[in-house]
């Protein structure tokens, strides 16, 4: 791990810096800023409003996704840490590969919007990371980041620029793509040795609370995520409103269903952490359409419903029958709701829901976008899985899964105490200090 990981990371970093040196420039706006009357609009697009949304998205990627995955009792460092590594590498690589589609005079011109898009592209990798959580090494994650973002940007170019489908909140291009990519990779990397489960693949009381920090930040800032790349201020506002109501409806449904499907009507923290967010995923594709708040709430409720049912019934089925082991349940949080979002956008397009002015998106194109996204994700994920399976990439043996101490210096003396909040044997503090 020492040399393989470090040298690969430094090599990638050096490569990216060189590519940045050759291709990336700041967007020229010297000429425009001198003209005072346009000054205000420039202020808007660069400095202030965009930057506000950008910061929200940034929080979601780094704190939201990072802490959402800390639910495993011995895998907190890797969840947050590797999440940060992937996102930091991904945003640089994302800037480059997304920029290659929009080059002007052999140069990529960047602004705050390209930073938002770069953050978006890392989200797909983080979702796939959720499916593989605990079963891969940092070296494998570096390679997956590079491959997945490259494939993602091709698919996004296809959906947005070739098919001209609308996907403002990126239900399809980010969530469904990331989820199915991760699932395909997880299928290829299936470990039959872990069929009976692993002793560390459990949560503890405090790790569930840490995961809740992530959920809350994701929940709070989801309206920004869905509205970040909306075209006009009006559409942006509509996206925020739709997402807001969808998430609220989804949360209520998730709580209700969680209590309904569990024995004795208790709530399951896994459902609360994940299913409450499904509404934000599902509303993504239609976020800026004129679907009325009740439409948004309907989509949100269905998403919450589907997500809880998925956690309860589909995940065990996938894991035992289809040999797809999905650690975080990304299929239920991102896959199914993303697919649902795609369906909703097809229905909305078929019903001639207005997008802006009089034009509405075309249903066949939305369907094509959904189909090609899932197809590319599955094929790309399977190929990436095969590459990750190469023996020299340092995949951990079965017994070392879900364990921080393989990759991290974990403070030793305490490792056995983790998760024993109510352990009656631990009277050390009292003995020492009273």
């Amino acid at each position: 791990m020492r040399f393989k990981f470090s040298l690969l990371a430094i090599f990638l970093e050096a490569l990216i810096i060189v590519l940045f040196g050759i291709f990336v420039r700041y967007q020229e706006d010297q000429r425009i800023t001198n003209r005072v009357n346009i000054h205000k609009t420039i202020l808007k697009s660069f400095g202030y409003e965009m930057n506000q949304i950008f910061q929200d998205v940034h929080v979601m990627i780094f704190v939201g996704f990072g802490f959402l995955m800390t639910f495993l009792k011995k895998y907190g460092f890797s969840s947050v840490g590797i999440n940060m590594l992937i996102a930091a590498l991904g945003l640089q690589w994302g800037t480059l590969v997304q920029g290659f589609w929009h080059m002007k005079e052999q140069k990529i011109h960047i602004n705050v919007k390209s930073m938002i898009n770069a953050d978006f592209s890392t989200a797909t990798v983080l979702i796939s990371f959720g499916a593989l959580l605990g079963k891969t090494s940092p070296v494998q994650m570096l390679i997956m980041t590079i491959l997945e973002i490259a494939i993602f940007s091709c698919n996004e170019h296809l959906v947005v620029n070739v098919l001209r489908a609308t996907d403002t909140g990126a239900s399809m291009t980010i969530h469904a793509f990331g989820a199915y990519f991760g699932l395909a990779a997880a299928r290829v990397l299936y470990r039959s040795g872990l069929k009976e489960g692993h002793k560390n693949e459990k949560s503890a009381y405090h790790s569930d609370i840490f995961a809740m920090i992530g959920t809350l930040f994701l929940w709070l800032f989801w309206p920004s995520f869905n509205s970040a790349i909306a075209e006009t201020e009006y559409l942006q506002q509509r996206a925020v409103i739709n997402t807001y109501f969808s998430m609220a409806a989804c949360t209520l449904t998730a709580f209700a269903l969680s209590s309904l499907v569990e024995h004795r009507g208790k709530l399951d923290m896994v459902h609360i952490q994940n299913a409450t967010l499904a509404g934000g995923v599902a509303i993504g594709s239609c976020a800026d359409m004129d679907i009325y708040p009740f439409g948004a709430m309907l989509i949100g409720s269905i998403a919450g419903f589907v997500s809880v049912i998925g956690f309860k019934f589909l995940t065990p089925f996938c894991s035992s029958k289809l040999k797809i082991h999905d650690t975080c349940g990304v299929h239920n949080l991102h896959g199914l709701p993303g697919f649902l979002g795609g369906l909703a956008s097809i229905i909305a397009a078929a019903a001639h829901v207005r997008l802006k002015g009089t034009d509405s998106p075309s249903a066949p194109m939305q369907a094509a976008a959904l189909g090609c996204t899932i197809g590319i994700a599955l094929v790309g994920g399977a190929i990436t899985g095969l590459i990750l399976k190469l023996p020299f990439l340092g995949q951990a043996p079965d017994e070392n899964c879900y364990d921080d101490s393989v990759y991290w210096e974990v403070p030793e003396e305490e490792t056995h105490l983790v998760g024993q909040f109510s352990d009656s044997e631990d009277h050390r503090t009292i003995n020492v200090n009273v």
Partner: protein
Amino acid sequence: MGSEYSPSLRSGLPGLIFILETAFILIFYFCFSYECQSQSEDLTIYPAFQDVSVMVILGFGFLLAFLKRYGFSSTGFNLLIATLGIQWALLMEGFLFSSPSGKVKISLPSVAKATISVTAVLISAGALLGKANPIQLIWMAMVEVAAFSASRWINVQFLKVEEHTSLMHVHIFGTYFGLAASWWLYHSSLSKGVDKKKANPLSELFSMLGTLFLWMFWPSFNSVLIVDVTEKRNAISNTYYAMGVSAVAAFALSALSSRDGKIQMIHIHQATLAGGVALGFSAPFIPYPWIAMILGLLASNIAVLGSRCLEIYLNPVLKIHDTCGIHYTFGLPGLLGAIANVILFIIIKWASLSSLGYPVLIEVGSFMLTTAIGLGAGFITGFFLTFKLWKTLPASKYFDDQAYWEFPHLAHGF
């Protein structure tokens, strides 16, 4: 709880805080008023100001929460000295920098400046973490904010340094102030590993929360006070990419520098932030992203190497104990940034070579001066903090929440 063993703060702390607060309120009543004009201009920086607030209160608070028995104090005292420091910084700021006529005007930028100034105190508090009690911290905050404002005033008034640049000296100033002060609070037992001084996985995750917030909002920190649109945009993007590079490099270097190739959480906490610190001075002027990225890479290198070497070789020799490793998180990357700024300055102004000497001298002088004032003021303050009057802690009570806090039920797991 622990009041029989460590000196009770009951007589000292509330009195001190009430006197200070009363004084602040009176001064604010007599001398300060709100700015009446150009409020809409003010509001445009509100989002970025909010980010800086999150960094100062939440980011620094949780960054310091990595000691397993000191989480309450790390976050709690951070809030205490930050809020007190901001008020005091506003006063100093107002008296030193505003025109003498009439009442001092408060606007959002001046609050933002005060908030940034206070990070000097929080950085110094990182060096003293676990060794100073709240009374000492409050006195340190008072002296340090005054000293930093004075150093800034000299820089702006006499050396004609730009105001934004002078504020970015905060990292260097805070570090050397804290290190000099920690020389006085050194105790021979600190060089041996104390059990309470260690982290546990839970506390390191809390610290990671703080790190992430600092990391994410650093672009706002580096750009909040810049007025020019192009420069602001450059500052944001440059910091963004530099932070990205320093995060990736921190992981690689941490794995490379440990014997069995494992990553150390403490490196991630420190080195990922180094890029933002190093970019502080030059972020608005760097014309291409790759220059910023190389700076981020270098800063991250310095931070990881520093934490490997300084801790073992330098600190025991100088008898300094730097709990949080601020020297290589903020100090050295800050110096790197200052030097890089001078070099960039030379390159950009290369054309007018004849008149280059004097401005370069000023640039170098300004950060040297800040460092010197920081060291000097810190040394004097450190001496001042050792007075028994402030109810100093015995070394056996270092790094322990129970000296100050009522515990729920002597919690398990702490």
